[in-house]
C-alpha cells in the first residue's frame, strides 16, 4: 500500500489499495422490510467507499464478532451508498438483518462478474428471477430499461404473494414499458397474477428472446434456462448466476470451486453453455 495514499476522503474508491480481505466500515442508513424475513439495508461509507458495484456483483458483509457472508448488491446510489437485500437464515445473516440505522458493519468488494447489460442494447431480452434472485437482477433491469432494449420481459417467481420482492419496482418497470409477469406457487383467489412456476410462464410466452438472464434457486434456473432454449434462445446468450460457498472473494481459498471455475471470480454470472455440463455432475 502506498503510504502517501489518501485513505480518508469520503467518496474515494480506495479499497483496491488496501488488503483485499480487510472489510471497510460502512454505516447502515436505512432498513426496509421487504417480506417477513427479508430486509434491504442501505449502507453508506464511514470513510472510504467501495467501488460502485456493477449489476450482478456481490460484496462480503462482515458482522463483527460473528462472521462474514456474500450478498449480491441490489441497489447502487450516490456517494458510495448501496443496498443489500438479505434473508435471515443463519447466524451472520440474522445479525445483518437485525442491524438498525446507525449500526456499523464491515463490507469488502465488489466481486465477481456482471450481467452483460451492454450487450443487450436493442435486443429482445428476457429476465427470469425467482425468489431472492430478483435482488442481483434489480440493477440490471434498471440498466436494461434505461438502455433501451428492443423489448424487455421480466418474469418473477415467488413462493406466495407476500414473498414477492420490490413491488414498487415492478410497478415502476411496468410504467417504463417493461412486460412484467409475476407468478407464485400458490395463492388466494384475490391474487391478480399467475399461479405456477416461472418456467411455465416462460413456456407460455412462447417467444424467442435474443438474451436471457436467469437468477434464483438452481433448480428454477436450470428449468427456466432450458425452457428459454426450447423457445429458440442460443445457449450462449443465456446467463445465470451461480452461488457456492463464497468465502475469500478473490479466488484464493477455492471454497467456491465448480469444476474449473472459482465462482467468486469467474461468476457469479456465467454463461449457461459454460456450466451446463458442470451442473449435471452429482454432488457438485
Amino acid at each position, binding site marked *: 500500500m502506498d503510504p502517501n495514499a489518501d485513505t480518508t476522503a469520503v467518496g474515494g474508491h480506495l479499497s483496491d489499495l488496501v488488503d483485499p480481505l480487510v472489510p471497510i466500515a460502512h454505516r447502515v442508513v436505512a432498513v426496509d422490510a421487504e417480506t417477513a424475513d427479508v430486509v434491504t439495508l442501505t449502507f453508506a461509507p464511514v470513510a472510504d467507499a467501495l467501488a460502485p458495484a456493477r449489476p450482478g456483483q456481490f460484496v462480503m458483509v462482515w458482522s463483527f464478532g460473528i462472521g462474514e457472508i456474500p450478498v449480491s448488491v441490489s441497489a447502487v446510489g450516490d456517494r458510495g451508498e448501496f443496498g443489500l437485500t438479505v*434473508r435471515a*437464515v*443463519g447466524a451472520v445473516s440474522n445479525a445483518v438483518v437485525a442491524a438498525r440505522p446507525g449500526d456499523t458493519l464491515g463490507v469488502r468488494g465488489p466481486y465477481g462478474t456482471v450481467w452483460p447489460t451492454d450487450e443487450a442494447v436493442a435486443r429482445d431480452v428476457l429476465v427470469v428471477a*425467482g*425468489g*431472492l434472485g430478483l435482488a442481483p437482477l434489480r440493477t440490471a433491469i434498471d440498466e436494461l430499461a434505461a438502455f433501451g432494449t428492443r423489448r424487455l420481459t421480466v418474469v418473477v*417467481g*415467488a*413462493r406466495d404473494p407476500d*414473498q414477492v420482492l420490490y413491488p414498487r419496482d415492478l410497478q415502476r418497470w411496468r410504467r417504463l414499458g417493461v412486460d412484467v409477469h409475476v*407468478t407464485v*406457487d*400458490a*395463492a*388466494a*383467489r384475490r*391474487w*391478480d397474477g*399467475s*399461479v*405456477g*412456476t416461472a*418456467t*411455465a410462464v416462460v*413456456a*407460455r410466452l*412462447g417467444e424467442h428472446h435474443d438474451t436471457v438472464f436467469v437468477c*434464483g*434457486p438452481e*433448480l*428454477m434456473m436450470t*428449468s427456466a434456462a432450458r425452457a428459454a432454449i426450447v423457445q429458440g434462445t442460443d445457449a450462449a446468450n443465456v446467463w445465470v448466476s451461480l452461488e457456492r460457498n463464497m468465502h475469500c472473494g478473490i479466488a484464493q481459498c477455492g471454497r467456491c470451486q465448480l469444476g474449473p471455475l472459482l465462482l467468486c471470480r469467474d461468476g457469479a454470472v456465467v454463461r449457461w453453455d459454460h456450466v451446463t455440463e458442470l451442473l449435471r455432475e452429482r454432488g457438485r
Partner: protein
Amino acid sequence: MTRDHTDAGDIRRALGDHAFFAGMDPRHLDTLARMAGWSRHPAHSWLAHAGDPPDRFHAVVDGRVGIEIDAPGRDPLVVATVHAGDVVGWSWFIDRQPWQFDVVALDDVRTVAIDVDRVLDACASSEGLRSEFTTRLLRIVASRLHDTRMQLVDVYGSER
C-alpha cells in the same frame, strides 16, 4: 355461465388459432368444431366443481382460470392458473374421470367448450383424433407434473 350459439365457422377459427390445437389435422378441427360452442364466465364464477361429471372441457381463449383446492380447515387455495392457449378439464380422457378440482374464473373468461361425450365417441372411431388428443394432453400432463414437483420441493422456501 352463458353459452353462445355462434356459427361453426367462428368456432372453427377459434380452435385453429388456439395453441392447444396447433398443428392438428384440419379434418379433426372440423369435427371438433361441430361439438363445441362459446362459453362465457364472469369473474369469480365457477366453471366446475370437484366431483362434477365431465360434460365439457374448455379451451381458454380470454382471461385466467384458477384451479382451486378447498380443503377443510383452511382457506381455498389456487394451485395453478390456466391462461389463454391452454385447456382445463382433461380428467375425462382417462376412464371418464369426474372433475378433480374446483375451477373458477379469475377474470371474465371466454372459452370454447367442447362436449366430452362426443369427443370420446369420435376418438373411439378415429385413431388419428385419439392420437392427436393423447399427444396434446400428455404434453399438458407433463408440464403440470413438472410444475407440481417444483412446487412440492418448495424451491423458494429452501433458498439460502
